[in-house]
Structures are given as structure tokens and as C-alpha cells.
């Protein structure tokens, strides 16, 4: 076996440093002893370990083989031209304090610079930089370089609290340990660095993507994200509620890979969300994010499509910054939305974006995706997009659209690029309105939104709709406040239109007392003032409020 030979032989040691350069001495180990030590230090199990575990195990085995008090491994930081204490036994302070030794100076620094084994018989009379070695009252030291394929990767040294002359046998064992351990350390270190980056990027990416997509009355959402096999990218998607009951949906793809792309994605996602909730238009929101990107220290670019859906009307306002065109599927006319050619965010100074308005029919789903889904070597992009449209054309829900897209477009095996898909379904409006609601004041907004949408679908004019929604809201608030049931309470809501009459019933399972306090009395007063006919009936099971109103026919 070989130990990395000193380059150009061991130079003469400066006098008075108390250090002795030693020649490699493997011949000193007897065959049996060598085999045993070799085995202990090259145990196949060691190669399964991560860097920290491997170093920890090596320390124990070296300490055991040489009967020493301290063992330390310092790894070479090429950028800083320093050795950094990475693992230690008996002198754990080295690692805790992050001891750094410049190459070429002191005990370990010289071992690294000269690539030689060095023996220090008496620490007190030697050129030792690291105060911890003195503080721990280490008397004698022996160290060897860790070398892989001619490259220095660190230093391994052992110490004794009693004066000890490390003999040729000790040097041989330590060199053997170093020779055996170095490639393992290097492999584990490289793997750890890559793993760390990949892992960190994955964790960041996952933490930045929404865990649950926001949904609302008439709106359901679904999404998929698949990281590339070897590298995390900067794809993201989001669905969030906006003022006036609207919903924002966004998909984006940051140019680049790995941690920087994931981190930038996080910034852009937050920035876009922050501008969007201030009720900026989709094009205005993209412009603001672009201006923010222009101020970032490093150049950044991303394709983004952002759309705002009004669930009351089905109108979708869409702006796209160089992103692939979305699909509208699940209706009578599955189609690819033509998107005007526009630059990505961050590409040119003072760019602006156009906005288009799309009318979604109830039941239709809009599908956004990133290029990872449709870019295949040797396949024209439009062919892939056509396949995607074909696969999702009849999807009845956002979830089904995502599933069909993933099943039909994602190739088996490893992914070259990450893939994001997000779909938003504009739900169909039933001819008869029915809803079961938990007795929670926070759900009143959903009742109102669903009811408004249904009333619009029934051609009920806005002024009538407002009064009906208010009256029903008050009846529901009553049901919520009277929900005495110890089990999670619910109430039922039903509405029908018959000719010019709209009838709404709210049924709960509580018994209404006479109005408590002025406020509830006021609520009932509003119900009676708003509706033409109100009947409150008490059954064995609960209370039913039946409200009726004649509405004007919507002109046209």
C-alpha cells in the first residue's frame, strides 16, 4: 500500500520547532497486525456512512488501535487555505470552536503543506499554534496528511497526555488509517455537499409551494409538482383569495436551477402575492414584480402567467410574461388560449404586459403548466401541447385535469426538468341551490358567495339579489347563534326559483328562543323587511325559516 509521498521529499525541518519529520514506515507492521488494523479501518460498513458518521467511527477506531488520548481530523478548506477542525475525540473543543489552522503554519499546517508525517515529542517546546492542544495538556503529538489521488484533503492527528515517543509502528498504523480513510472521507464529503445542496433546495422548494390550495364557492383547484431527478428547479404555482371574492392563480418558472433558483422563486412568489392582494390588475402585478426584479443584485429572469378569476361572473383576466399558453378544458370548446408574445419578467428594462379577458363557462377548467411538462427532445413543442389538450379536453374537474396531464405527458424514468401544473375549475351552477353548512360564522361569506352566484344564474337582478343575500345571511346567523347541539352543528340551506318567486329555506336543528337582545331582533327585522313573506316554523327537529320574494325579471 502507499501513502501519499511527500512532494519532492521531506524538506529539512527548521531547527527549534520541536518537530520531527518521519518517513513512511509501513514495513514496521507485521502481516497479521497489518491485516487486523487494515480490516478495522477499511470495514466495508464504513462506506455506507455519511460524512459525520464516518469521521466519528474513524476516530474511535484510530484511538483504539493506537491507545491514544486524543484524535482529530481537520479538513482542508481550499478557498481559505486553512485546515478546519471537523471531528475530534478527547479534544472536542477543536470542533466546537471551529479551530482553523493556516496551511504551512504550526503542527497541522506544516503536515498539510509538506505532506509529511510529523511527530512532536514535547508540545511545550514545539511550534504549536492551536492553544487548545496546550490547554488540554497534550504532551506528544503525531500527525499525518490525508491525501486522495495526490490532492490534500486534510490532516489526521493523535495525541497523548503523557510524554510518549510515537514509534515507527504507530506511524505506520496512523498512515494506514489515513490512507484508508481519506478516499472515504472525500467521497462522503463530496456526496454530502451535493446531497446538502440538493436536499436544501428540495426542502426550500417544498416549503415554498402551497400545502393546500385555497378553494371557494364555485372554485376548486388542483396542482402537481415534480422535481427534476437530479436538480431542483424554480417552478412554482399558487392559488390565493383576493378582495371582492376573486381568486388569483399563478404559475412561474425561474430561469436556473438548484438553491439559487428555489430561493429566487420564493422571493417572486411572495412579491407577486403581496402585490396581488393590493388588488392590482394581473398586468399591473406582473409589472410590479418585474420592477422589483430589476432591483435585485443578481440578474434574474422568470416566465410567469397570472390570472384573476371572478367567481361571480366567470371572467378570467390573464397576463402572461413569456409563459406557455394555458388551456381551457372540460367544456364544449376545449382550447389553447392564444397568448400575446411577451418577454419574461426581468428580461428587459421597463417592459409592460397586456391583459386578456376570457369568459369561462360554468364547468370549465383552466390549466397552467411549465415547460418541463411539454418539452421533449425531438418533439415539436406544439405537438406536446396538442397532446396535453387532447388528454385533458374532457376533464370534469381541476383534479382530473391535473391527473390526466400527469398520466399522459410525464415520461417514465428520470425527469430532466421540474414540472408544475395548476388547474382552476369554474364550477357548474346547479339549477336548485342546496348547501349544508357548519354552524361557524366564518362560513357566512361562502353562503353569500354561493347564493349570489346562483341568483345571478337564475337571472335575478342585482338589487333583488342584494336583499335576498342579506336576509338569508341574517337567517343563517340566527341558526349559527342558536346552534346549541354539543355535536358539531350544521344547518341546511335550499333555494328555488319558480316564475318570479324566489324561495329560500334555512333549517337548523336548534330551537329558537324569542330573539335574544337587540341585535338578533334586528337581524329578524331585516329578514322581514327584505322578504315579501317570512314564516318561522318549529318542528321536533329544529327550526325552519322559509322566505319568499317576488323578483323583477332581468331586462334582456
Amino acid at each position, binding site marked *: 500500500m502507499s501513502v501519499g509521498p511527500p512532494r519532492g521529499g521531506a524538506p529539512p525541518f527548521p531547527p527549534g520547532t520541536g518537530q520531527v519529520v518521519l518517513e513512511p514506515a509501513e514495513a514496521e507492521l507485521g502481516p497479521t497486525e497489518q491485516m487486523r488494523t487494515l480490516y478495522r479501518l477499511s470495514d466495508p460498513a464504513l462506506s455506507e456512512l455519511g460524512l459525520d458518521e464516518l469521521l466519528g467511527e474513524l476516530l474511535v477506531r484510530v484511538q483504539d488501535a493506537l491507545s491514544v488520548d486524543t484524535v482529530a481530523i481537520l479538513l482542508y478548506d481550499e478557498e481559505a487555505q486553512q485546515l478546519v477542525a471537523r471531528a475530534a475525540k478527547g479534544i472536542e473543543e477543536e470542533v466546537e470552536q471551529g479551530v482553523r489552522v493556516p496551511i504551512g503554519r504550526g503542527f497541522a499546517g506544516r503536515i498539510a503543506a509538506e505532506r509529511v508525517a510529523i511527530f512532536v515529542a514535547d508540545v511545550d517546546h514545539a511550534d504549536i499554534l492551536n492553544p487548545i492542544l496546550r490547554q488540554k495538556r497534550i504532551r506528544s503529538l503525531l500527525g499525518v496528511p490525508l491525501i486522495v489521488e495526490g490532492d490534500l484533503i486534510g490532516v489526521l492527528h493523535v495525541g497523548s497526555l503523557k510524554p510518549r515517543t510515537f514509534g515507527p509502528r504507530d506511524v505506520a498504523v496512523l498512515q494506514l488509517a489515513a490512507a484508508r480513510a481519506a478516499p472515504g472521507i472525500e467521497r462522503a464529503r463530496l456526496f454530502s455537499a451535493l446531497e446538502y445542496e440538493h436536499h436544501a433546495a428540495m426542502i426550500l422548494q417544498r416549503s415554498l409551494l402551497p400545502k393546500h390550495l385555497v378553494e371557494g364557492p364555485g372554485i376548486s383547484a388542483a396542482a402537481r409538482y415534480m422535481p427534476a431527478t437530479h436538480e431542483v428547479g424554480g417552478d412554482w404555482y399558487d392559488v390565493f383569495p383576493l378582495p*371582492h371574492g376573486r381568486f388569483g392563480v399563478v404559475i412561474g418558472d425561474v430561469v436556473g436551477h438548484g438553491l439559487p433558483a428555489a430561493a429566487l422563486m420564493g422571493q417572486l412568489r411572495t412579491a407577486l402575492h403581496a402585490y396581488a392582494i393590493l388588488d392590482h390588475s394581473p398586468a399591473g402585478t406582473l409589472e410590479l414584480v418585474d420592477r422589483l426584479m430589476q432591483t435585485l443584485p443578481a440578474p434574474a429572469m422568470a416566465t410567469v402567467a397570472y390570472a384573476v378569476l371572478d367567481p361571480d361572473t366567470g371572467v378570467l383576466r390573464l397576463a402572461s410574461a413569456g409563459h406557455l399558453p394555458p388551456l381551457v378544458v372540460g367544456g364544449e370548446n376545449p382550447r389553447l388560449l392564444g397568448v400575446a408574445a411577451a418577454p419574461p419578467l426581468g428580461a428587459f428594462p421597463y417592459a409592460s404586459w397586456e391583459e386578456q379577458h376570457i369568459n369561462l363557462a360554468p364547468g370549465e377548467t383552466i390549466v397552467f403548466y411549465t415547460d418541463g411538462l411539454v418539452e421533449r427532445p425531438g418533439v415539436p413543442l406544439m405537438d406536446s401541447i396538442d397532446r396535453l389538450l387532447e388528454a385533458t379536453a374532457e376533464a370534469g374537474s381541476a383534479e382530473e385535469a391535473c391527473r390526466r396531464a400527469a398520466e399522459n405527458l410525464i415520461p417514465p424514468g428520470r425527469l430532466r426538468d421540474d414540472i408544475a401544473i395548476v388547474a382552476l375549475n369554474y364550477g357548474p351552477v346547479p339549477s336548485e341551490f342546496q348547501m349544508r353548512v357548519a354552524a361557524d360564522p366564518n362560513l*357566512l361569506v361562502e353562503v*353569500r358567495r354561493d347564493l349570489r352566484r346562483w341568483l345571478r344564474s337564475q337571472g335575478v337582478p342585482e338589487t333583488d339579489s*342584494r336583499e335576498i343575500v342579506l336576509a338569508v345571511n341574517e337567517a343563517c*346567523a340566527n341558526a349559527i347563534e342558536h346552534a346549541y347541539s354539543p355535536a358539531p352543528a350544521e344547518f341546511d340551506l335550499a333555494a328555488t326559483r319558480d316564475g318570479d318567486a324566489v324561495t329560500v329555506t334555512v333549517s337548523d336543528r336548534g330551537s329558537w328562543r324569542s330573539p335574544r337582545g337587540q341585535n338578533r331582533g334586528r*337581524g329578524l*327585522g331585516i329578514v322581514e*323587511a327584505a322578504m315579501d313573506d317570512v314564516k318561522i316554523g318549529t318542528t321536533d327537529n329544529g327550526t325552519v325559516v322559509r322566505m319568499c320574494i317576488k323578483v323583477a325579471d332581468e331586462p334582456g
Partner: protein
Amino acid sequence: MNLGDVQLKTQDSMVIARLTGEIDLSNAQGVGQAIARGITHEALGLVLDLTGLDFLDSAGVQLIYQLRRDLRARGQDLILAISDDSAPADTLRLAGISSQLRIRKTVEEALAAGAAGPE
């Protein structure tokens, strides 16, 4: 996204509370507390700006009553700014209390009414 929101500012010695979004049983109390905290002793009164509000229910009416009671006890005015033909206007009309409140169509008119002193 919050269901409703409130922004406070002071102008011409009046506190202006602008309500946006929707006010209902779920958030009326919190909104009322935020406004009450924002009314200083030096203020002549409060302009409650409902011109940007999409919905107001009876819990919101209760909030207005509570504010009026508290302000009266301190000798401060309450003036509402409400657009005609809006959801909050419907609510106050159907609750039968429009006539009991000082209502103007815009914040500017409400401020002018505040400067003119109590009716």
C-alpha cells in the same frame, strides 16, 4: 385574504375609518375594537366611511350602534359616508335606522358636516 379590513386616518380633527370588503358576524367585533382604539380624545368625531364596503349585516349595524353610544358618551360625533344604492345602504334602510344616523354620500361631505358641528 381578510374578509374585511379597516384603515384609520385623521383629517380635519376627525378620525376617518374606512371599511372595505365585507363586515359580518365573523369580523364585526374585531373591526369595532380596532376603530374604538383609533379614536383619540382630541378628535371631534368619527367619519365611518362605508363607500368601499361590499357587505354589511346586522352585526355591522350593532357595531355602528355601539360606536355611536361610545362616541356620544365622550361628546364626539358619528357621521357615516355611504353611497346610494349600495349594499350597506340597503342594510341600514332594511334595519330601519337610516333616519337615526347622520349619513352623507361622500367622505368630503361627512367631513364638512363634522366641521359644522353637531346637528
